């Protein structure tokens, strides 16, 4: 082995010497000096690298380990929820949230406010009450159908009158809730509106011809009852 090769190897790793290197160093004072120097350098490096380690580092590492929910994970979770929400909404399983509008915002002549008054004050005429075919005709006139089953009992409550014109009242009964529905053939609306007044809520929903108002005790019941209708 030449001095050049030996020194090259020493510079790479002065601790791991091959048999040839050892033999060369034993016979070459220059390379032996270099080997000793480089080993000393390594020792100094190792000493210098012993910077003080903060007390309790391992303990802190172990304490911090379970919180692995970083921003990246939060971002992924939020994205997954958003995608899931979009899928559910598109599939019609969940409507976008609605917040009740106070009566002051829509005015006293709004069909929702009128429908609440009609139901609370019990102003419906009982003429033709219970007439199933009349109920079907009224629904048909608005382009609506009532879904069957699910323990829902619907009966025709009779004719009633709002500012928009003559309307029909339907009462929906389920084992745990009740709602009144006012079919308003001459009052089209652009979008659904949820109005609260006199401890009742009224959900106004556009239909093919006109609109219908579900009056219930809570927004949840109103939404649930409104979903019983579909476009015919």
């Amino acid at each position, binding site marked *: 082995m030449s001095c*050049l090769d030996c*020194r*090259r190897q020493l*510079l*790479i*790793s002065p601790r*791991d010497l091959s048999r040839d290197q050892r033999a060369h160093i034993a016979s070459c004072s*220059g390379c032996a*000096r*270099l080997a*000793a*120097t*480089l080993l*000393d*350098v*390594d020792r*100094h*490096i*190792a*000493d*210098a*690298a*012993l*910077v003080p*380690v*903060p007390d309790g*580092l*391992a303990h*802190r*590492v*172990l304490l*911090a*380990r379970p919180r*692995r929910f970083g921003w990246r994970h939060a971002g992924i979770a939020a994205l997954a929820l958003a995608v899931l929400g979009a899928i559910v909404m598109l599939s019609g399983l969940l409507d976008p949230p609605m917040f009740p509008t106070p009566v002051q915002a829509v005015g006293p002549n709004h069909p929702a406010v009128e429908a609440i008054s009609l139901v609370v004050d019990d102003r419906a005429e009982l003429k033709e009450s219970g007439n199933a075919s009349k109920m079907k005709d009224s629904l048909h006139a608005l382009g609506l159908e009532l879904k069957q089953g699910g323990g829902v009992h619907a009966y025709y409550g009779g004719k009633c009158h709002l500012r928009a014109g003559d309307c029909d009242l339907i009462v929906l009964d389920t084992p745990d809730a009740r709602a009144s529905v006012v079919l308003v053939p001459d009052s089209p609306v652009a979008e659904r509106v949820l109005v609260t007044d006199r401890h009742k809520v009224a959900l106004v929903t556009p239909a093919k011809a006109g609109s219908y108002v579900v009056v219930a005790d809570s927004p949840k019941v109103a939404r649930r009852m409104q979903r019983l209708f579909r476009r015919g």
Partner: protein
Amino acid sequence: MFSGKRAEFEALVHSYSAELYRYAYYLSRDRLTAEDLVQETFARAWSGWMRLRDVKAAKKWLYTILRRENARLYERKRLDIVDDQDLDALETVSTADFADLEVRQALEALPPCYREPLLLQVVGGFTCDEIAKIMNLTPGATMTRLSRARLALRKASGGKEASA
């Protein structure tokens, strides 16, 4: 099984946290950053701990994670130029020259690309092949960097001597 893996991991933290902190300190040259790096390294290691097949490879794995985290979170562009090695100049420097050398400063002054393999070898005890894998280098490039790191330290020492 889970508790066994957890105990192994806790033993790993106790064994290597100090060593990794020192390595992190020389990568970042900042104590707070070094501790953050160690925390992040073990956090990442824990998330992949169940998938680690060979526990004996854990040390190399931890160093690799730490390097990657440092690059991802903290590393900034640095000047990495040193002169080529000059083997003839070596004989003129003796062991005594290094006795008074502030090795830590010299080490910190080394370009990261040379400091890292040297620390991995001297402090971490890794072989050239292992360093090459940790740093994603060829073995040849690793050897070159190790040689140049030692030469740069020698030159720094020589410069101080001359100016003194």
